[in-house]
Each structure stands twice: as structure tokens, then as C-alpha cells.
């Protein structure tokens, strides 16, 4: 058994790393970010968006709701320097200067980390620009101030958010190197069961040795 422990630990660690999905996007060339091919349950889509405050009858919504703007062009990436937004962050970046970008998950996700870098300029909306996480009922779960007037402003936070359906990047800036870590499902996956079993086995083995 003792000889098997290193092998089992490596196997468990590999299995564990598959439990969290890191969505990384450098916005280098694709006009429409796509995360297909990862192990995310469902799909994620991105679009220019607006905040809706009234329903079809003009009555106030219970909560404001970010929605894809069907009249807007497809979201674009570009070189921030071409618009005077400072030197490139790392090649092209997501152009959200003129409109907010909405990332939508077809199924709610649990998010454990988020990172993002803004353009290298002081241009940007000088007040109230927040990166926001919403659930499927449009309740605001969490927001992070992104100061668009600080050149090269970046975000890198560990989070503990459950049931995220929407992530909104506020208008006014270029964004690059986005990284969103979708936490392991609340239901233990086989790899987790294996890891827990391993630790339990090791504990029992050592106790018996003692």
C-alpha cells in the first residue's frame, strides 16, 4: 500500500484539476469568443449588451436585466492603440469602448476566480464602472470596481460565487487576458471521491502502523 500512495496522489491531483474549468481568453483574433471544447456544462456566449429596466409593456422590471443587444454589431477585438487607448496589452483586446459586453452561461456556474486586464490608457468612464456577476434571476451576486482611468488596471480575485448566469464587463475600455475559473460542481465528482477515499485510506493505514 505504501508504494501505491505516490501514484494514487498524482492520479487524484490530475483528476482534481479536471474538476475546475479555467476559461481563458486572450481576444487575439476571434471576433466572437467561444469556449467550446472545455468541460463546462452548457455553453457560454458573448455579446454587446444593454441594461433593460422595463418590460414589454413599459412597466418596471423587478430587477434591471442585462440583455444582448440584437441591434448591435458582433463583438469585436482590436488593437487598443488604434483607438488611442494605449499600447497593446498582449496583441488584440476585446473592444468594449462603446458598449458593455455580456457573457452568458446557458447553465448557472460556480465561479472561484476571475482575472482581467484593462487597456494601457487613462481614457474610460471616470465613475461607477463595475464588473458584475448576476444569477439567472438577474440578482446581482457580486461586483468588482474596474477603474478605467488607471492605465493597465487589472483584476485578479479568488471568488466564491454560486449560480452565476451572467458576467458583465462595463463599457468604456478594452479588456484582455480574461480568466474565469468555474469551480467544481457541488456534487462530488469521481475524482473527488477518489481523493477523499485516498486520504481516508492513508489515515487508516498510518493509524494502524502507529
Amino acid at each position: 500500500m505504501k508504494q501505491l500512495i505516490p501514484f494514487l496522489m498524482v492520479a487524484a491531483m490530475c483528476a482534481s484539476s479536471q474538476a475546475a474549468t479555467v476559461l481563458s481568453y486572450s481576444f487575439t483574433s476571434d471576433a466572437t469568443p467561444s469556449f467550446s471544447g472545455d468541460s463546462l456544462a452548457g455553453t457560454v456566449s458573448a455579446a454587446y449588451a444593454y441594461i433593460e429596466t422595463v418590460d414589454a409593456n413599459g412597466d418596471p422590471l423587478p430587477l434591471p436585466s442585462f440583455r444582448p443587444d440584437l441591434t448591435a454589431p458582433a463583438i469585436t477585438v482590436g488593437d487598443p492603440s488604434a483607438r488611442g487607448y494605449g499600447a497593446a496589452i498582449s496583441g488584440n483586446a476585446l473592444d468594449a469602448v462603446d458598449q458593455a459586453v455580456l457573457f452568458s452561461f446557458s447553465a448557472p456556474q460556480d465561479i472561484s476566480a476571475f482575472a482581467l486586464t484593462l487597456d494601457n490608457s487613462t481614457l474610460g468612464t471616470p465613475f461607477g464602472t463595475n464588473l458584475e456577476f448576476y444569477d439567472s434571476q438577474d440578482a446581482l451576486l457580486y461586483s468588482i470596481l474596474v477603474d478605467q482611468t488607471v492605465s493597465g488596471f487589472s483584476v485578479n480575485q479568488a471568488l466564491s460565487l454560486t449560480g452565476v448566469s451572467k458576467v458583465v464587463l462595463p463599457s468604456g475600455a478594452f479588456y484582455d487576458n480574461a480568466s474565469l475559473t468555474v469551480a467544481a460542481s457541488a456534487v462530488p465528482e469521481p475524482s473527488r471521491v477518489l481523493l477523499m477515499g485516498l486520504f481516508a485510506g492513508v489515515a487508516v493505514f498510518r493509524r494502524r502502523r502507529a
Partner: protein
Amino acid sequence: MKLQNSGKLIAAITGLFALGNAFAAPTVTRLNPPSALFTYADATPPYISRFLPAQRFDLQATIQADAGKTITSVVFKVNGTPVTAAGGASAITSIGGDKFSATIRGYSNSTAGVKTLVVEATQDDSLVATGTGNFEIASITLNAGRKAKNIIWLIGDGTGIAHRTAARIVSKGASLGKSNEPLAIDTLPVTGIVTTHSLNSIVTDSAPGAHCYSTGNKANNGQEGVFPDDTTDKWDNPRIEHMGSYLARTQGKWLGIVSTADVEDATPAAFAVSTQDRGAGTGICDMYLDEAVANHNLHVLMGGGRKWFLPLDGSAGAGSGRVNSSTSSGGDYVVPADVQAGWSVPAGAVDPNRNLIADFQTAGFYYAPDLAGLNAMTGSETKLLGLFNSGHMDVSYDKIAHRRNAATIAPGSLIATYPDQPLLEEMTDKALTVLSKNANGFVMMIEGASIDKQAHNMDTERWVHDAIEFDKAVAKCIAFQAANPDTLIIVTADHECAGIAISGGSTVTDAALQSTAVGSLKGIVGTYDNAKFPAYTIAGDGYPTTMDVDYRMIIGYAGNSDRYETWRSSPSYNVSPQARNTTTGYLVTGQQPGTGVQSAVHTASDIPLSAGGRGAAAFTGVFDNTDAFFKAMQAAIGGSK
């Protein structure tokens, strides 16, 4: 008994102190930004001064000290928190008569809501004066939709409802109860009504009438980019950040200013300049280059006013040369140190021999002295200066007549000296070409200036003609917007001028009108059924073949001085209505007071506003002129669906 006497003595001493304080105490006599709370102790809406989140403005107080005393310290508090000035951006200045002006420059606040402003000024004997006012930081809904990338303000100076109607009747015609065609302005989908009062009067002049659109705030008549203060210095007033500056520093937009007036005139200057004197000639034009090019991204400046740009010593050749410079009547500018520090602007200079055109060229501007110069542009230009007349540009009525027949030069015009002046639509076209090169968009103000100036002059044919010219500039912008949908077009005025009324139509032919005796001219005015439908013919150049048609449109003036009326066009430009047609016209007695009043005046009537494009839907209803600023900035900052 002793105790009783002691008590009386103490009371008497206390009373004397109180009496002394009542007669000797410093007082705050002015607090900027202006507020009803300070002026009338009224804390309820409407709030007089409103700003965008993060829009910069100055805090200022005037303190009347006791005789021989000095104000040693001043603290401004916003919602109870002392305001700290940036290095060098504050001052306490003695302004004479034991008065002191205290300033903090370039303040801003990013949190929406009504703020209480308190100033506490301490005299050298420790007595403290306080004043309380308020201001509002407007709420902008971020991420409300796509932003307006380009904002075009078209200001028909003095253009009320009737000016538009007259232009439509003449240029499009009407028959069987309907207009034959709409004006370009009429095709804009959104219409609103705008109130125009200035800070100190129900009747505004053009400076606050345009300042409101550029800053979102009220100003006193004659002032632009500033609040009033108590000094005689034209350049030290409390400033408010212009739209051009705000959008340049936050979004990298460019600014364009196009006018048929002298570029020093109130409306163009109100979009980039800060002074309490709308007539401060060379200083205003220097400020375009020294401040607006650097801080507002000013890339296009076109109009008249070349005289302010040429050195007084004649070294740049022909031209009247730096008129109203410091060497004549003190129009040049130098700003105090706290303004320089708070607004990141240069000091300015008294420099009558400055060659401002050359300085613009050194800063990268292409210079066009005439239409040929505009047409010689290669298309690669990113900065454009056009100065087409020494003063106000000549009006389209006379420019078109000269284009049709080079020998036709209206007496009183400067067409002989400046024969190749562009029309407003031609200037607009070139401005759009230059400004659209910026990937981040632009703000542009386009003014049809002489609709107002000729309405003042009660020269019907010339202001109607310029209203048609203005509409052609609007058409250019609408075509641009069709190709660039993230463009917001706002067509409005700064105020109504002259109390225009289309009271009817002539009942006689033009030939008959010319032969009508002076005493009978009043009788040719047809009203109601007798007005019929005046019919004008439009030439291939898009303008009326003549304004003197048979059965012509009749215009009345409610805000008028005395005039002599013939109901026909005047061959001469800019002749006073009291000197014009004195033998051929009949006297129409005006309502303006006093001798020497020789023109019609602005009125307090509401004005129309038409809008189209991104964010236009907000411009409905009846609203204050400052509201138009916030509606436009919602579209530019927060976006709209």
C-alpha cells in the same frame, strides 16, 4: 443686591459684545456654484447647478470682511467633508473694498445626488463667516446601450418655431393646406420644446444660450464657460468643464466648431472658452489654441474673425490685426495661477503681435482662407482652421447672389474683399470629413449665426435665406448619420430672436408692390384667406431665385424697434432698420425702450429642438436648455438603446 448688580453688568457686557458682532462680522456675499439655497434659502428642486459625475468645476466664495480686516483662511465643505485643493489650485484674493474671493479650482464629485456646499471663512480676528449652498451631481445610467460616438449640435442662432416655418414656406412651398416637402430638420424623428432663461434674466443672450449646451449649467448674460464672480478680471471666473473637454479626456473624442459668425462670437466660443466677457476678442481666439486644442482636442475651427488672428504690427500682411488686443481695449488674456494649476492651462500672454494663424499651423492645422482653400484639401488633413472673413461671414443671400453673378456685391458686405466665402453646408461637409477620421468620434457645434443677426436687423429676406442655408447643413449631417448610425444629431437654437410671426401674405404682385405709395403699403398685407400660399422658385443651387416674389410671405416682428417697412428685400447688407428705407417704407413703431435702440431683440419664448440618431429618443417634452446637455451626455457616456 451686589449679585444683582453684577448680573446686570455681565448682561450689559454680553449685550455690547453681541451688538458689536452684529455690526462687525464678515459675511459671505456669493457662493459658487450658484444655488437657490444660498440665494433664497430654498433647498428644494430645481437645483440650479448640476454636473456630470467627475465633471470639473470651481468652488468660489466672495467674503465681505470687516473694515481693515483680512480673510486668512477659507474652507469649503461638501456634505461636511473639507475639500482639498490640488497643489496651487486654490487662492484667497483681495478684490478691493475689504472683499475677498476664495477659490478651489477643478473640483469634481463622482457620486450622484444633491450635495450641500458650506464655506467657512475666517477673518484675522478669528470671526468666521459661513455660507451654505448646494449643487447636484446628475445620475447617468451606465451600460444603457450603445454609446453615441458622434454628437452634432446644430444651433440656428435665434431660431424659433416661426423661423423654421418661414424657411419651409420659402424653400419647400405649401399648397392645399400642406407643406409640399419637409425641411431636413423636419425629418428628424424626435421633437422637444426648450426653455432658455439665463442665470440672471428670463431673456438670454447667445453666450449663456450656448454655454448651457456645452456645460450643463446656467451663466449670466455675456458670460461663457464660467459662473459670475465679483472681480473685474475677465479670466478668473469660476469655470465649468465643457463637454468637449470631458469627452476628450475620458473618451478621446475630437471637438469641432463651425459657425457663419466670427469664431470669437458668443455661440462658438461658449463651446470651448471660459470668460465673463463674450467680447474679449483676441483672448478668446488665443484660448482656442492655447487651451482647447490641448484640452478639448479641438480639431476643427471654422468661421469668420480673421482679424483676431493677425499680428497688430502688420507682419503677416493684410488684415486689421489683433483688434481688441491688450493694446486697444484689453481683450487679451492672462489667467491667474490657481486657474493654471487647477485646469492645467497655460498662463496666456499679452501678445498683440502674435501670429495666431501661424501658431495654429505650427500645431498641425491646415489653414483655409476661402472656399478654394477648403476644396484644395487632400483628404488627409486631421486638423482644420478656416477663417473666411475679417468679422462675421457674409450671409447666404449675398454670397449666393455673388456666385450667380460675380458683379453683384451687396453694399455693406465684405464680399468684395472676401469673394470666395463658403456656405455653411460646404463648411459642414469638410468638418465632417476631418472629424470622422477619429476612431473615438467627435463633438461638433455648427451654428447658423446670421438667422439671429439678420432677425435682429429685421431683414426678413436675409434671415430666411440663412435659415435655408442652415437646413442644408442639417441635411449634410443627416446623411452622415445615416452612414454612421452611432451619431446623435440635435438641432435647436440658443433662444428666439425678434418675436417672429408669419402674419400673412402680400395681396399684390411684386411689381405692384414696388409702385405702391408709402402710405398704402400697410394695406397690402393679406391675412387669413387673403394670405393664400406664397410661392417661391428654387434655383439649381438650392436657394430661391428671388425673395421678391409676387404675393410674397409677410413677416411681423413682436420684439422690435422702430423700422421702415417696404415688404421688399434690401439691396444693402446690415443697414439699421431705422436708417433703411426711410423714404420708401412706412414707419412701424417698435416696442423697445429708449432712443438709439436700432434692432429687434431676443425673446424669452421657448424654442424647438429636433433630434435624430443614437440617444435621440430622450429629447421629448418640455425641458430646460441645460437638460439637453445631460440627455446628450447620457447618450455619450451611458449609451442608449
